[in-house]
């Protein structure tokens, strides 16, 4: 890794750890200055950029150093008083044949809140989200969405033969955005996930993680009030995973109501509400 690449990676890692942008620029500048003066390779002086960023963040008190995925939410982005209700789910029940999957499930998410839906495989997490999105009918219960809805499926949801920016234009037109507005909004959101979508690569040729980034960006286009995200980070590398949570916090700060399906319990200290679903047993009645 050359000096420029090392410094860029350091900047990215500091950003992911919630270090203030000005402070990040200052740390990177200091490191560059030191490297220039010493003439030594950055790996020999500072070690891997991730490790050095963790050490810096730890010394600043903004993040833990033991494991990057234990990053806490930056105190500056914590929301103020709770906002108005954006998603109100009441009494949702759903069974497949004789097997009850969801029984009388309730959830309320306000503007500026993140709700995590957790549970083991087969506990009905994706079913619950599909019901919230109106893609599946429940046997009982109702869902009220106050505003507009964005949905990121666990898989699929893209068109194999279209380029990423064509997806932005397609979804953007539905939201009433012009082509240039869609492209700009898509590029901005993609940049926050450390992804450049401007290439002419058809969706079928994107890696699994990049395709999920595309899915996530499409869900956020047009600034929907409620975001339903069904394990959107599948295939993400660790850096993108951290970027994803930063993006969630930005959406929360912007007053969005977010529901994210996850089975990774180490994320729960980052959310406002946890809805735990348990797999139901088959009934004989």
């Amino acid at each position: 890794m050359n000096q420029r690449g090392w410094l860029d990676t350091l900047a990215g890692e500091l950003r992911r750890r919630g270090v203030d942008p000005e402070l990040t620029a200052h740390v990177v500048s200091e490191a560059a200055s030191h490297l220039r003066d010493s003439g030594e390779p950055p790996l020999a002086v500072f070690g891997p950029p991730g490790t050095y960023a963790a050490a810096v963040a730890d010394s600043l008190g903004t993040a833990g150093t033991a494991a990057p995925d234990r990053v806490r939410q930056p105190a500056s982005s914590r929301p103020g008083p709770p906002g108005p209700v954006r998603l109100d789910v009441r009494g949702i029940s759903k069974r497949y044949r004789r097997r009850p999957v969801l029984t009388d499930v309730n959830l309320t998410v306000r503007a500026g809140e993140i709700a995590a839906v957790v549970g083991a495989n087969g506990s009905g997490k994706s079913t619950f989200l599909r019901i919230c999105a109106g893609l599946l009918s429940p046997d009982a219960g109702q869902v009220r969405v106050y505003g507009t809805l964005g949905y990121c499926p666990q898989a699929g949801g893209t068109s194999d033969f279209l380029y990423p920016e064509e997806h932005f234009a397609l979804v953007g037109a539905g939201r009433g955005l012009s082509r240039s507005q869609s492209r700009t909004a898509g590029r901005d959101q993609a940049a926050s996930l450390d992804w450049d979508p401007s290439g002419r690569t058809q969706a079928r040729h994107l890696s699994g993680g990049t395709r999920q980034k595309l899915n996530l960006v499409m869900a956020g286009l047009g600034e929907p009030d409620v975001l339903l995200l069904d394990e959107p980070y599948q295939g993400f590398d660790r850096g993108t995973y951290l970027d994803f949570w930063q993006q969630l916090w930005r959406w929360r700060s912007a007053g969005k109501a977010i529901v994210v399906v996850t089975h990774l319990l180490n994320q729960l200290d980052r959310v406002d509400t946890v809805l735990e679903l348990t797999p139901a047993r088959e009934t004989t009645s």
Partner: protein
Amino acid sequence: MIKIWTVAEFALREILRRRGVLLIMLLLPLAFYLSRRGDHLGQSIRFVCLGIGWALSTAALFAGSAARGIEPRLRLSGYRPHHLHLGRLLALWTVGVALSVPYFLLVRFDQDNVRYDAIALIMVLTVATAAPFGLALSAVLPRELEGTLVLLIVVGLQMVMDPADSAARLLPFWFSREIGTYAIDHTDGGYLTRGLTHGLVAAVVLTALVAVAATIRLRRRPHLRFVSAR
């Protein structure tokens, strides 16, 4: 209307990027045409029209199946069911017209003593019918293999059944045999009238079927209510 055009534009882009499929689509009617050109010129015209119908129906079937993944999220993004199915139909009709033109020119310069305007009419009706037929199949049979097999059965029956048999009128491309007889054998106008009526009814019924299927599949479920943000 902008939303319909947008869906049509991107559906067309998708189809045009399936180069292998396009090549097969282009060659399939030619193979049908050449199969009888040596011994029965009139039959080769009937076959080329059927080939166009088969190729376009198959393309529509695959386009419809491929769209199933993205259409629910487009619905959530502000599109209504008619934006989606009409946009896709427009794209497929455009492809069908582009596919038919070279074959009409082929018939025009390769065959004598046929009613060319009637041949053009068969091709227009074939395109109008084949696109919704393929989309309707994809709506009813979500798995491509099943849809392809049904398509194969329909086109096979179309080729082997006696057109005079009343059951043959249930097949979507029956009109092509009827108008083809008028165009090639110079029969009376009754063939043209029956064929035209059948073609129009088939196109309208299949288009309506696509609309109904899309409306049901992409309907807003009653448990979900959108309330404007306060």
